């Protein structure tokens, strides 16, 4: 399975949307909750509809439409989305109303928009697209599962152009609850020193990233997505190393062939220690480039990671604020993501 990435669009805690230069100025945060920087939606969405939409729907629909526009595609052959948490804002609104009002006199609006397929559905509705439409909701694999489905559709020949995306939103309620699970840092935070001053916990993020994948190469492609693999709960760092080596070997590559590795460290000393264990044995410091200080940690952050990887290959340059310093040309880029050291994914990108 191989696909060409025609376009990519992302709304994240960085200026990733409508950027002119790739991450020209990296925003550092001194908080454990990174919020997505939302654009003026009026350019993309019906102003009347905007008022009814939760943030996840607005972010998702806007990046989806932007990705389609960049690719020059009016109607994709399929729409596939991945979201771990789904539409939390509307879920919370309906829950609060239901409990607070003892199940009486509730409005349907929040419930209607609370289903996990709302973003995929709103895209279809907006485009009047009657084709394949699916939503994957499997924790730290939600986006990867959507991507695998998209690539399967291309391989089957049932689709030539697939819109695929990752969306998750953080709400006050979800942040408060996840915080109680000790996921996030409680002391001073500075995302600029996230990896050099390790402590317990990570930083929370949210965002949306959409892509148009094509089965055939075309002028203007950002890059090629050569292979993707996921694995759950590896036994040891050596196990992860073996899986990475085998993944590369299946593409006739070795670790040394990779120009840049986007690596899913997240500032949590426990996770990062494990990541260092497997990554340092395979790659040198110059190859490795962490990305979660940009977007925060969340189950579908592999979406923005893919956006970054595709843009780096297209631009043939790593944004200057990122730690890796590599020589061009950049031909092969590997994304290694981990979520909670349980959900691992590998994505191989090639310049075109």
């Amino acid at each position: 399975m191989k696909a060409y990435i025609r376009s990519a669009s992302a709304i994240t805690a960085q200026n990733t949307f409508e950027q002119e230069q790739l991450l020209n100025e990296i925003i550092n945060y001194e908080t454990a909750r990174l919020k997505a920087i939302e654009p003026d939606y009026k350019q993309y969405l019906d102003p009347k509809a905007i008022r009814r939409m939760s943030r996840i729907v607005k972010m998702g629909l806007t990046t989806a439409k932007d990705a389609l526009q960049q690719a020059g595609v009016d109607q994709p052959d399929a729409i596939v989305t991945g979201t771990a948490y789904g539409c939390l804002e509307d879920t919370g609104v309906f829950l609060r109303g239901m409990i607070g009002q003892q199940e009486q006199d509730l409005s349907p609006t929040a419930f209607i928009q609370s289903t996990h397929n709302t973003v995929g559905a709103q895209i279809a509705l907006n485009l009047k697209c009657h084709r394949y439409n699916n939503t994957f909701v499997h924790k730290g694999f939600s986006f990867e599962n959507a991507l695998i489905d998209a690539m399967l559709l291309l391989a089957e020949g049932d689709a030539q152009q697939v819109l695929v995306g990752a969306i998750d939103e953080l709400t006050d309620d979800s942040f408060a609850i996840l915080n109680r699970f000790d996921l996030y840092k409680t002391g001073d935070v500075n995302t600029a020193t996230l990896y050099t001053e390790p402590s317990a916990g990570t930083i929370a993020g949210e965002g949306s990233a959409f892509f148009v994948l094509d089965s055939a190469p075309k002028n203007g492609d950002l890059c090629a997505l050569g292979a993707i693999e996921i694995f759950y709960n590896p036994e040891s760092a050596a196990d992860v190393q073996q899986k990475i080596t085998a993944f590369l070997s299946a593409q006739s590559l070795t670790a040394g062939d990779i120009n840049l590795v986007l690596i899913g460290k997240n500032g949590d000393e426990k996770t990062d220690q494990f990541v260092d264990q497997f990554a340092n044995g395979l790659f040198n410091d110059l190859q490795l480039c962490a990305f979660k200080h940009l977007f925060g940690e969340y189950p579908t952050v592999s979406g923005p990671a893919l956006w970054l990887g595709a843009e780096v290959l297209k631009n043939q340059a790593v944004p200057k604020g990122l730690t890796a310093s590599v020589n061009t040309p950049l031909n092969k880029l590997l994304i290694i993501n981990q979520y909670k050291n349980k959900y691992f994914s590998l994505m191989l990108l090639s310049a075109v």
Partner: protein
Amino acid sequence: MSDKVYIAGLGAICAIGNTADECLASLKKGQDGIGEPSYLRTAHAGEIPVAEVKLSNTQLAEMTDMPSGTSRTALLSIVATKAAIQDAGLDLSTLRIGLISANTVGGMDKSEDFFADFMANEQAGDLAMVRHHECGSVTELVADQLGIKNYVTTISTACSSSANAIAHAARLIKAGMLEAAVAGGTDALTRFTLNGFNTLMILDRQRCQPFDENRRGLNLGEGAGYVLLVSEKTAATLTKQPYAQLSGYANANDAYHQTASSPEGTGSYLSMSNALERAGLQPKDISYINLHGTGTNNNDQSEATAIQRLFHPHFPPVSSTKSFTGHTLGASGGIEAVFSVLAIANGLVFPNLRLQEPMEGFDFSPERELLTGKQLNHVLSNSFGFGGNCTSLLFSKVS
């Protein structure tokens, strides 16, 4: 790469039975499972009937060796997935097997209790009750119980979720990524969904009457339904003949409204006709349609319009088994897949209960009585959901 995917095992639990056999017995007897809730705590008890599984969480936890605080969604799923695997009599240890499961609200049955405490005080509420809130968490609990690791994922497309899970599993098998897969879905009754559907004013205050001119809405149900899908090569190693072949599937979007179906039934027409096309079949080849048939004014009108357009003048027998089970949301596609396969295996067309006056303006109407001794070659099962998600599955007799 082989194009054939077979159904080797069935597992179901819902308001009309705790096993697929019990469900079949109820379907034959014409006995529905709709009534007052015994376990769901809601202000609407006594006013809105539901189709509850007739087991408490404690009983389900004992049956599955799970902690009693486990989400009912996961417990129901474990019962039905284990049954499907056992039914096939396969040694899973030698197979590359996946679990493709669907649900719509994950562990909401526990989260909504947690949330009441949390709303009063952000530091209150037992965290164990939200630990498995996510849809994917429910699937993971089940996968761990089954020991399935190769490929585990969760699909959530509202009421078409588990039909999409079955179609996705078939595609993973066809692509050679898996040799077998447990696929289907689960959903437990929650106050969240009951109140959600209640605000839409589509819940029947009586037992529902799908495809009736005077239908009043749907009854919510709960349960889990799974099929064990196997590749052609794996099917050859089975000790018994597979129940059926999954010969077609199609996913389309109505793209009309977030919750309402289009009057023309665009999405349902596309999902049915594309499933037929994938199987290389004509409308006249279909022996029975297990309808989505929720009993709402909108769904039944839209689905009937699509059937009228696609099947005229060769209408097969049709019925909605939601008149027995209620609408089990993310589980419905899985449960009805099990029923469709049982229909083929037993030569039965199940009745559409309580049909009094067929819908006007259509040249077909659902079966009121059980039909027996039928040769069913191809059975179509419809699942349509919020967000315009429409999926049809096509099951065929093994030749």
